């Protein structure tokens, strides 16, 4: 039999038994659409965790040991949105005979506010302003020094050596221990030393490759140390990988179930239409042709249904990507959602393609059972029993 004719027969069978075709399609459409949405949501969740974690302070790539002579402008390569430059040095803070060591960071307050979200974590007072002799202090250190907003603190390298006196303009708390312990900020102009280690925080544009830019940086400044967020936040990296593995397992399980469903449904249809298969056998249809006939039917059905499911899934993702899904109430105590609990589902090849591809592969596998059944059954038995 010509394949074209088998395709025509399959098409006619599907169209003319449209009720059963629709019932089967609904199963595939809903599975594909919901999995595309779920996968996009998982990617959106990963995005949100990365965005929250790097957006608070560190950027996607953090640099240290940058030689002072180097113009950090060269780090603004293609794919990089902003590069923040900070100088840092250990100092001693004291008031009323209480001493606390801190790592003081000199920052450009305007740029920091533009690119990072630390200023949103202010619990008292406000963030720094350029040029002022102010200090922005973590809550823990402030409490130890019995400081509140408006109070002042001496700064030096050893007790008694007052290099500068700064006014506390703001106190913050992030919930992340690295940022909440022994860290303080002041505007560049208020930094009491001409030296200090230069560090950088690069924020990348969406879709840029962190690894490529990191490698590029290492070539640009060989003596500098550059680390991507995947290195300095291995816990987050693992969480994201785990998320992908879970998603893959869910997809495979869902389609295995859907394909068992399709297979059962097709077997029931085949049993219901067993006489037709018997009649075709008496007309000399070969086992390969019967198998192809079933495969073409299931193939066409899953192909069409997967396409419709894909469109529906994409539509849902686009809709929710606009408004976002606010899960703040579920994420407020979570360090990976310090800035915002809004998740924007995002379509990528990983979230878009596997659901329909799996639907078609599993769908075709679902044709095997009914065709085995048909091919093993003798036409005489079929015609006698049905």
């Amino acid at each position, binding site marked *: 039999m010509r394949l074209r004719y088998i395709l025509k027969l399959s098409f006619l069978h599907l169209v003319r038994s449209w009720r059963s075709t629709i019932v089967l399609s609904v199963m595939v459409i809903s599975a594909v659409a919901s999995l595309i949405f779920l996968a996009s949501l998982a990617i959106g969740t990963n995005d949100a965790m990365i965005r929250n974690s790097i957006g608070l302070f560190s950027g996607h790539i953090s640099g240290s040991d940058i030689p002072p002579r180097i113009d950090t402008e060269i780090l603004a390569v293609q794919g990089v949105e902003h590069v923040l430059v900070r100088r840092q040095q250990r100092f001693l803070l004291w008031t009323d005979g209480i001493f606390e060591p801190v790592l003081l960071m000199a920052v450009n307050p305007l740029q920091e506010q533009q690119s990072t979200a630390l200023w949103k974590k202010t619990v008292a007072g406000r963030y720094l302003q350029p040029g002022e002799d102010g200090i922005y202090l973590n809550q823990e250190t402030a409490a130890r020094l019995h400081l509140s907003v408006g109070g002042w603190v001496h700064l030096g390298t050893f007790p008694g050596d007052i290099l500068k006196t700064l006014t506390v303009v703001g106190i913050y708390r992030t919930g992340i221990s690295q940022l909440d312990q022994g860290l303080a900020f002041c505007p560049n102009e208020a930094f009491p030393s001409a030296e200090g280690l230069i560090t950088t925080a690069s924020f990348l544009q969406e879709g840029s490759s962190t690894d490529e830019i990191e490698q590029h940086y290492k070539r640009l400044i060989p003596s500098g140390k550059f680390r991507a967020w995947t290195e300095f936040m291995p816990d987050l990296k693992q969480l994201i990988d785990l998320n992908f593995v879970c998603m893959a397992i869910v997809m495979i399980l869902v389609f295995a179930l859907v394909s068992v469903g399709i297979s059962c449904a097709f077997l029931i249809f085949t049993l219901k239409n067993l006489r037709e298969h018997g009649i*075709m056998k*008496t*007309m*000399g249809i070969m086992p390969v042709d019967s198998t192809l006939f079933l495969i073409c039917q299931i193939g066409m059905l899953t192909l069409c249904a997967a396409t419709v499911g894909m469109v529906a899934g994409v539509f849902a993702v686009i809709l929710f990507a606009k408004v976002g899904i606010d899960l703040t109430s579920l994420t407020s105590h979570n360090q990976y959602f310090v800035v915002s609990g809004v998740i924007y589902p995002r379509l990528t090849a990983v979230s878009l393609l596997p659901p329909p591809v799996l639907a078609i592969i599993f769908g075709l596998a679902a044709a095997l059972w009914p065709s085995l059944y048909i091919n093993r059954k003798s036409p005489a038995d079929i015609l006698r029993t049905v």
Partner: protein
Amino acid sequence: MIEILNVSKNYTSGRGHITALADISLSFEKGQSSVLAGKSGSGKTTLLNCIGALEKPDNGKILCNGRDICTFNQKQRALFQRREIGFVFQAANLLPWLTVAENLQFPLEMNGIRGKEQTRRISGLLATFGLAGYDTAMPGELSGGEAQRVAFARAIAHKPALLLADEPTASLDSATGYQLIQLMLSLCADQRTTLIIATHDIELIEMTDRKIYLKDGHLETKI
């Protein structure tokens, strides 16, 4: 020319051992019309199925133009059925999701008869069987007699050498059945198609050249 040599067929079922055919020997000349008559359970369907290679006899040979169809493998069997045989059963012969014309197209496609020749044959068959204008009708919309006419038309569409009909008139009233068989007999005579009809319809038995009676799997009388 079909020769049946010492064919027997037994079944084992819940009722025990059943001899459906017991050492049957028969031959059918090309173009001859025969009727297989006998009571219910006498083995008519079993014999037709063996001749049409739908079932394999336990013993014996069935020679069709000198070739023993009992030794055919699956592919040879399918090709034999596709080219040489047309089947008509008591009812529900048609593929319900194909129109009348598409049902007639099926055996032609299977035998590689396509294009103009296919169209010509389909319209010829529709006219011959009084089905003009029925080409786009679905089987579900046909009466029993019309459906059976389509089934006959489909069974001879590819001009098979052998037409096997198992109680083709059982679900029709006698006048309709009579007309249909009359038509089949004349068409088979024209095309030199060997026709074997299994039936217990007395009227029908009287219409053919040859009558074969089966009783409990045995040949009773040969006329």
